[in-house]
């Protein structure tokens, strides 16, 4: 583009709104180069793919539980009475051109969205990027994770196939298990006792396509605005200080690379959507409360919740023949509440107890530089990971034949023991690394020995040089 033709639109905006300064700020915004900084970008781009594919799907999906007898093209479902929600999902998969591609891409994008957010969170926690002044943005990030889990669950609950129904039954029981308000709350939300009335499906739909995405988009925008205001954090390095940022400016190279990342994320998702089957709802069949299937697994990001529900022993607290705390409360409410409470409290915990450092930090830490925080975080995440693994104990039985009950007892023990071991080991590794500093394989770590006149060897002072050593050897 010649300089002249580019001038007109910039001038147009500048003369009316005065955007040229802002544009200049954007163009010279500096991105420190580190691969781990791309995780958040991947999440952002997965979200864009979700909005694009989701908009397409919304054109064809009908959030209606009214039933009709199926006469479509799937022979396995012929003559069954199924809901419009399920029928429209089948129709958009079978008959809308590119419909299945969009649906599968949407589902893969949701899985990637949450995976990227989770890895991004790990990066933030282990490098101390949540510290002042980024604590405020960290809270937004944790909120985004919670909302994204809800959004994902709402999404795969919509099609009214057998798996969505089973998931919703559990969600209803978890809602019922809330202290004090559980019964009325769940009944109100579902418009009656589970499976509820058609109003629930439309509430779920509005939550999934409007309320939650709108909140997510707003929070993402605020998240980015705060980053730009504070500038990126950076790892220590040559010329990098607390009060500067060293890296590639947005224009021109970084903008292109980042757009390239967007295209790459979209490409991978579209290829997966086209080539790898996900959630074939026609195989599950329609949901009825009296139907269930074995080996059902939720989307991966709910694995830790199903694991918690499965690990919990059959405790239910009651007084005088009335329930106080139903069992799903422990795995479905208490466990995620504790995990998220820990996440939200992390900046404060770190300031008060872990690093005991209230100062402002724009330079990141390597995990080894803060052994206590790294070890604690690793222990907490390992506990969550074990619960997550316990959620697939039934698959382990199917795949490898490990007895289910034994596996559950194993995981209950592991949940108590492994985090302690992880804490000790991680802390030790960090301390060793911090002491070693240099790469032990590359730095000098040998010892000088000298041969004395009698033919024996004796170690020489670490400070002395070889020539000194030979002198030393010669004098004896």
């Amino acid at each position, binding site marked *: 583009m010649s300089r002249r033709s580019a001038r007109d639109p910039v001038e147009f905006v500048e003369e009316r709104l005065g955007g040229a300064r802002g544009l200049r700020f954007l163009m010279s915004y500096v991105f420190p180069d580190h691969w781990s900084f791309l995780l958040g970008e991947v999440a952002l781009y997965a979200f864009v793919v979700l909005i694009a594919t989701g908009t397409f799907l919304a054109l064809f999906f009908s959030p209606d539980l009214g039933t009709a007898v199926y006469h479509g093209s799937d022979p396995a479902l012929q003559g069954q009475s199924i809901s419009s929600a399920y029928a429209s999902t089948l129709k958009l998969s079978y008959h809308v051109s590119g419909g299945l591609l969009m649906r599968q891409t949407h589902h893969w994008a949701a899985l990637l969205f949450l995976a990227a957010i989770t890895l991004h969170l790990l990066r933030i926690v282990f490098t101390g990027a949540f510290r002042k002044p980024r604590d405020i943005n960290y809270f937004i990030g944790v909120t985004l994770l919670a909302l994204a889990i809800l959004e994902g669950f709402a999404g795969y609950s919509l099609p009214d196939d057998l798996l969505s129904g089973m998931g919703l*039954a559990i969600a209803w029981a978890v809602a019922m298990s809330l202290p004090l308000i559980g019964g009325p709350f769940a009944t109100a939300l579902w418009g009656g006792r*589970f499976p509820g009335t058609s109003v629930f499906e439309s509430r779920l739909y509005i939550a999934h396509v409007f309320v939650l995405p709108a909140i997510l988009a707003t929070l993402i925008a605020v998240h980015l605005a705060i980053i730009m205001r504070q500038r990126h954090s950076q790892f220590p390095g040559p010329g990098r200080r607390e009060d500067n940022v*060293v890296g590639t400016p947005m224009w021109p190279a970084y903008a*292109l690379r*980042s757009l390239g990342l967007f295209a790459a994320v979209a490409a991978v998702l579209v290829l997966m959507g086209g080539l790898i089957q996900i959630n074939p709802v026609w195989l599950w069949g329609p949901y009825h409360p*009296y139907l*269930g299937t*074995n080996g059902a697994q939720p989307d991966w990001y709910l694995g830790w919740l199903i694991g918690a529900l499965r690990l919990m022993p059959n405790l239910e607290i009651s007084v005088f023949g009335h*329930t106080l705390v139903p069992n799903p409360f422990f795995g479905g409410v208490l466990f995620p509440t504790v995990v998220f409470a820990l996440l939200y409290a992390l900046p404060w915990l770190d300031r008060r107890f872990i690093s005991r450092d209230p100062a402002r930090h724009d330079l990141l830490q390597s995990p080894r530089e803060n052994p206590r925080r790294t070890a604690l975080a690793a222990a907490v995440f390992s506990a969550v990971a074990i619960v997550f693994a316990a959620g697939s104990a039934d698959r382990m039985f199917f795949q490898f034949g490990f007895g289910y009950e034994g596996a559950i007892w194993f995981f209950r023990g592991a949940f108590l023991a492994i985090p302690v071991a992880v804490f000790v080991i991680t802390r030790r590794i960090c301390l060793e690394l911090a002491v070693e500093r240099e790469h032990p394989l590359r730095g000098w770590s040998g010892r000088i020995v000298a041969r004395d006149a009698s033919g024996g060897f004796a170690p020489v002072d670490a400070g002395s040089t070889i020539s000194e050593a030979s002198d030393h050897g010669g004098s004896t």
Partner: protein
Amino acid sequence: MASRLWKALVVLVLWAWGALRPRRRARARRREVDPSRRDAGSPAWVERTLLGLLAAIPLSCAAFAVLYILDPNTQLLGLALGAALALLAAALILAGKRLLPQETKVEERPIPGDRQAVDEVLEQAHAATDGITRRGLLLGAAGAAGAGLTAAVAVPVVALGPGIEDQLSRTPWHAGRALVDEQGAPLAAAAIREGSFVTAFPEGADKENLDAPVVLVRVDPASLRASSERAGWAPMGILAYSKICTHAACAISLYRAPLSPSTQSRGPALVCPCHYSTFDVLDSGRVEFGPAGRPLPQLPLSIDAQGTLRAAGPLSGPVGPSWWGDAR
């Protein structure tokens, strides 16, 4: 020895870490180092490759369009669109990394924290109440007004739900109600064999209701361990339990029925596929394993003169998951 082991572990970790990172980050040098630099110009192959990549994109897009109209096959569509995006990604990243001037820049970071501005804001804010004597009272009244409004706006939430009690405690089961299968045909006692697992519903009731579905299994009457009050509930050894798990409302769709002596060590059990709560069939639906906190409600059965199964009373307890304050 232990410390050697640690060293070995550390070396291993470091080695893996170092192998992943091609270059070691240079040690922080003096503070004044200015890493700014700018390299422009690129080798000739970059522009040629870029041209090739960019030229392939429209082809891939055209393939997508043609496929979409002629043969919207999911795999081919995904390949065509995915290829176009992958080419674009390659082109953008190549251009960003090799074609365009590569710059490292240093930008000053604005560090906020202007104490004086804070003081000024507070001063100005407090100035608003100058000359007001009943500050506390007014504030309290304003708070009450706000709370009242919030409550008033929240009241319509009540419209969401019908009363909970009748919703959660209505039951279609009573003595004499016939059991029917999914198609609505009455179930004959003779049709329930040992090892079979049959879902039944109350005749004429809504099958989607959580109270409706029960499972029928049959065992050797001599093996039953039920209490005396449930003595007559299982005519011919046929037992009926609610099909809705007392843990979290999934349908109990697995039946562990030991058919050969080698698996006889444990008795028949109903198993929920959601979190594998396991209910003892012989012992009044007692929880044998898994998270469910209450036994599975049992439906007393009777067999009428025609040999059809009928309920002999209501279910023995509330169906499905518990909630705060429910009667167990």
